[in-house]
């Protein structure tokens, strides 16, 4: 018992600096969420007996009852959902592909190239996307080449989710694959040799050796991706949307941005943020519980 106790103390001590840091810089400022239940503006005290304008859940209720609540929730969810469904496996496949290439300069080039889009600021990417989908842009040039009629891609709400999803995948898959590559590199090469001796072909090696080696990583990332199903990249959407595609493009983040332009949205913005965080956290919890039940991997 006393060994266990000392052992545990040792582990806690190792973690202590990190825990203290998180407590100070993440937990202490959390009192700020109470402004979700007030009418706050910069300069007002957070707690004050006579001066705080408590409004209870009014900001939440206003948001729920707002005319765009349904649309905003749907768009926010769908855009993240499409990214999850169509984008989650791309970095995994890409990492597997790289893993199959023989080491060499070419492989290094491909790898480096793939993560370049991550470095280009949203503004430039948005500019490029918009010029590609323009009526006289490259996409429509290809459409015309195959005998189609050009479409106004940026004014038809139906195309927006595809544009957003494809761009997001393109921008992130190389960068995301780094983690999988790292996980793959820890596989004992003997395993491959043994498999070869057994006559397993490359596909089988991949299926039975490489893939299992990155399974924990896949599961953890998947759990987090599900726990992020209500957060779309509003910074990027702001740059490529317009009133005509609000129907499919307006998400909570962009709505709050427009709200903020008028000012005084500290409290309502915090309220909406808190609501979304709660939903995301719930999703994470569910995903983790399911994962623990049906596989060996879980966050806790």
């Amino acid at each position, binding site marked *: 018992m006393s060994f*266990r106790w000392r*052992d545990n103390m*040792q*582990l*806690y001590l*190792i*973690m202590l*600096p*990190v*825990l203290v*840091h998180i407590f100070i*810089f*993440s*937990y*202490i*400022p*959390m*009192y*700020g*969420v109470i*402004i979700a239940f007030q009418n706050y503006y910069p300069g007002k005290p957070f707690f004050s007996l006579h001066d705080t304008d408590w409004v209870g859940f009014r900001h939440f209720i206003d948001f729920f009852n707002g005319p765009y609540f349904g649309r905003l929730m749907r768009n926010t969810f769908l855009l993240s959902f499409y990214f999850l469904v169509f984008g989650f496996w791309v970095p995994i496949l*890409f990492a597997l*592909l790289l*893993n*199959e*290439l023989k*080491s060499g300069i070419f492989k*290094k*080039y*491909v*790898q*480096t*190239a*793939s*993560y*370049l*889009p*991550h*470095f*280009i600021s949203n*503004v*430039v990417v948005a500019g490029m996307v918009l010029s590609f989908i323009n009526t006289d842009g490259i996409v429509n040039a290809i459409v015309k080449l195959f005998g189609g009629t050009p479409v106004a891609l940026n004014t038809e709400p139906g195309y927006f989710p595809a544009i957003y999803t494809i761009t997001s995948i393109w921008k992130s898959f190389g960068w995301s694959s*780094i*983690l999988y590559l*790292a*996980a*793959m*590199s820890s596989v*004992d*090469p003997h395993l491959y040799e043994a498999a070869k001796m057994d*006559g397993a072909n490359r596909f089988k090696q991949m299926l039975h050796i490489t893939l299992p080696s990155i399974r924990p*990583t896949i599961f*953890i990332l998947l759990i987090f991706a599900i726990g992020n199903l209500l957060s779309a990249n509003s910074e990027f959407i702001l740059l490529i949307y317009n009133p005509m595609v609000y129907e499919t493009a307006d998400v909570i983040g962009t709505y709050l941005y427009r709200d903020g332009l008028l000012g005084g949205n*500290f409290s309502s913005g915090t309220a909406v*943020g808190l609501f979304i965080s709660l939903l*995301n*956290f719930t999703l*994470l919890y569910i995903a983790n519980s399911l994962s623990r039940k049906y596989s060996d991997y879980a*966050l*806790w």
Partner: protein
Amino acid sequence: MAASVRRNPNKIKQGSVAVDIVLYALALFICLITLYPFYLVVIMSISSPTEVAAMNVFWYPKGFFLDSYKLIVSDTKMWWAYSNTLIYVAAGTLLNCLTAVLGAYPLTVRTLKGRKWLVAFLLIPMYFGGGLIPSYLLVNKLGLYNTMFAVIIPGMVSIWNIILVRTFFTTIPDGLKESAFIDGASHLQLLFRVILPISKPILAVIAIYSVVGIWNSWFDALVYLPNEKLHPLQMYLYRVVVQQSVDLKMLSLEDTKNAVANMLSNIQLKYAIIVFTTLPVIFTYPFFQKYFIKGALLGSLKE
């Protein structure tokens, strides 16, 4: 299944070449579509501003214009920002790696009491925060406001990194740890002598995440560093981009003149700044790359 393959070994070999060709072609294609945008940025940065404004540059630079680079290089503030960024990146990356390892290891020990609660303690801040102003007040109270520490200290722990490292640690065979304990090693010794040497891939990942993350960050500086002399490099790009998004409809005639002039000169300058601010960090990747290569850990595993 295995038996059927063994019967015809030649088929695998032949198939292998075809598979290789397909794989290489695919990789080449991916390489092209991801390389192009950066290539575009580079050729934009050296094309003449009018061609850039007209978006006429697609395949090769049009005109030859290096004034943007001259402007950047001759700006002493830029070099200040460069050296600041190097400090932030160096300090931040070291601290991030250290805290990720220290935070992750105990969570992988199954005998640790309250492990579940510790994970919850880590996860909650990933979802809930108090917003900008409480953080500012804290940083101000700690006396960090308008000092370099305001960027380094709050950012020295990344919970996401801790979780990634922890996931990696759990894949390490228990046998390794047990043999160390039999030798009487403490947890710290086990961590630094046994686990870390075989965790180079994940450390490389954390390092590259930190380097790139800190290199690209500007928000903390925006909030905590009103003093221009402490600004990191990315504030440059941020400022150019913000200036460009000024809503012209809100300005009077005479102010519009300046805003338009500003926008025009920024259209091309933006690309030069992107090249200038991202090239160095892109070249750090190959340095870390060797840790991801299959079999790199052969040596350490054999020991």
